[in-house]
């Protein structure tokens, strides 16, 4: 057997967080050579030009070799460490390290190749932008929340695309879609979701919605139930009166980095995830013409006083009778309380201990597992 391709050696690859990510930098190793890891254990802190995150182990085993050094740029999918059982010889490992080092030392390939195209759908006179990855399998459409955009799914879209055709859209008023939100109702946003499914030509799709995107996914499913394969709702709005109205208004009102940072901090259990780049990107979005008006319109329709105006519970219960519904919530959610998960009738529930309002960014592998399981329950 060729030692270099000993199949007991499992490479740990530089992940692809977001469609534009070409390379990542390891800012610190959490594990050392010789450590035993189980699935979900933190391996390394990684920084991209957009975001900082922690890579979790996708496979259990012993970390035999660390390939990439702290501070070094590694191309996406480049091998950064090797996991292998004790029986694998040092020679075989060293050969695999040499091969991996060659890839890292060759540097980051030029951009251009293999970038997914951002598509535009015209939905009721609004330009709706979306992007898809993945060749085969079921269509999955990811629907972000208030103030977010399709890049909110950066930790999930690529991993899910290994088995599915995974699309993410920018809702009206968000990202690069038209900033006109009409009356700001959930119905207007749901029309955009259905319009993207039309544009893709998807007869059946699995919807994943976060926060406001959860209520939007429910409304889209209720409007065209035969088209929906399953629903995964992540900290969805519409399942109880309580909501952090100060967060919604604060996000709409913030004019400067100084004002915005503490507001955005409320999204995460660990506020250190809110890097300067995260705040700058949000501020750049908020400063686009029309965004401030769109956000205020949405706040006015989402809130009745300081409570939620929309109620998705009845619609979700009806859908739950026909297709699998899963709800995922972080126990430390400071925007919408996790107790509202109980109001999603008939749903499989995943409470992520210690996660905030952004489980898909804070605990992506668990959210991915919940989505995969929901799709599997729907059957072919």
């Amino acid at each position, binding site marked *: 057997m060729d030692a270099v391709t000993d199949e007991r050696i499992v490479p740990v690859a530089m992940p692809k967080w977001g469609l*534009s990510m070409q390379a990542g930098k390891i800012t610190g190793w959490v594990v050392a050579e010789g450590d035993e890891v189980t699935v979900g254990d933190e391996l390394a802190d990684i920084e991209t030009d957009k975001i900082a995150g922690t890579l979790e182990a996708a496979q259990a085993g012993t970390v035999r070799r660390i390939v990439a050094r702290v501070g070094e740029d590694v191309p996406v999918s480049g091998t950064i460490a090797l996991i292998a059982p004790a029986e694998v010889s040092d020679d075989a490992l060293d050969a695999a390290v040499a091969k991996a080092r060659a890839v890292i030392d060759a540097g980051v390939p030029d951009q251009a190749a293999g970038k997914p195209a951002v598509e535009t759908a015209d939905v009721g006179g609004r330009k709706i932008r979306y992007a898809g990855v993945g060749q085969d399998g079921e269509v999955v459409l990811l629907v972000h929340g208030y103030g977010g955009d399709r890049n909110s799914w950066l930790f999930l879209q690529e991993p899910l695309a290994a088995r599915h055709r995974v699309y993410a859209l920018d809702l009206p008023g968000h990202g*690069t879609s038209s900033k006109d939100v009409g009356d700001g109702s959930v119905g207007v946003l749901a029309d955009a979701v259905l319009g993207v499914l039309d544009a893709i030509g998807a007869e059946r799709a699995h919807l994943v919605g976060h926060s406001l995107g959860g209520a939007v996914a429910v409304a889209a499913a209720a409007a065209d139930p035969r088209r929906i394969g399953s629903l995964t709702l992540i900290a969805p709005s519409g399942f109880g009166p309580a909501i952090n109205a100060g967060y919604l208004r604060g996000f709409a009102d913030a004019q400067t*980095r*100084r004002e915005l940072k503490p507001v955005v901090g409320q999204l995460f259990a660990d506020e250190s995830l809110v890097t*300067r780049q995260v705040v700058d990107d949000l501020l*750049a979005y908020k*400063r*686009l013409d029309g965004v401030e008006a769109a956000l205020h319109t949405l706040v006015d329709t989402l809130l009745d006083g300081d409570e939620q105006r929309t109620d998705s519970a009845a619609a979700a219960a009806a859908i739950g009778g026909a297709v699998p519904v899963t709800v995922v919530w972080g126990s430390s959610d400071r925007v919408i309380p996790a107790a509202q998960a109980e109001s999603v009738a008939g749903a499989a529930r995943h409470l992520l201990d210690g996660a905030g309002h952004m489980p898909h960014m804070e605990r992506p592998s668990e959210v991915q597992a919940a989505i995969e399981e929901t799709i599997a329950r729907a059957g072919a």
Partner: protein
Amino acid sequence: MARSITYREALNEALTQEMERDESVIVMGEDNAGGAGAPGEDDAWGGVLGVTKGLYHRFPGRVLDTPISESAFIGAAIGAATAGMRPVAELMFVDFMGVCFDQIYNQAAKFRYMFGGKAVTPVVIRTMYGAGLRAAAQHSQCLYPLFTHIPGLKVVLPATPYDAKGLLTQAIRDNDPVMFFEHKALYDLAGPVPEESYALPFGEANVVREGGDVTIVTLGRMVHTSLEAAERLAADGVQCEVIDLRTTSPLDEDTVLESAEATGRVVVVDEAHPRCSMATDISALVAQKAFGALQAPVEMVTAPHTPVPFSGRLEDLYIPDAQRIVNAVKTVTGWTR
């Protein structure tokens, strides 16, 4: 925001979008339509360095190619602004300010004040500044400190394509006279710029790099030189915070002082001459309001107090470079009483 365009294209896009949005926006200046090498209006080169390319035909009657008389067309633009237009006038090189300065500092800058707030003067004067193009002493100066000195003027110096578009959009929408400084050496710099319109508020500095050891306060082209120095210093374990002032009037004192208080060590990098400059202004600000936090005297990295040399080798020495910034940072980190 994945699309990348140049600083020049970002400025052109801001002009185009604002002219589409508001028909009172007009463009005027020398060669705004024709420009160097162009036989005439038909060719529409769009300014000596191509910033206004395409506007002449796209907005008929709203791009005015003026005679070579700054005192006339800058004055006309200011007058048009007081009468309800939003002119964007191009003073080709800021070095030419001498012939039209009265209209700017003694007229436009004073109207709001002298007419009890009843008069507004929404004029933008775009102008090129800075050394590096072998254009010698009369076409290479950084005269923004002179304008910063005048109450009633807003003074803007974008360092990136993103800032160029957002700050020019804000300048056009602003109701006060704005001096808008474009560094010649930045026109070909590319960077991510949203396709949609957006306005960046004045008086908000940009922390372009975070670091806890030394604060580098800078602006314009020197932002990039400072970042290069910060990158080199990081390799030696010195983490610099780099602040791009973006506008010198209004000035974001808070961001400078907060950073100075956190690091206790400040280097100001300014391509202008050292006397009565942003370098001295920021140094005085920090010395007065963050004195207790300082662990070393403030260092200034500036051009020398001489005209910009014609000799290329001397011009290269004249412009502050990354090595001089590295040296200044090492001076403040190594300073002992």
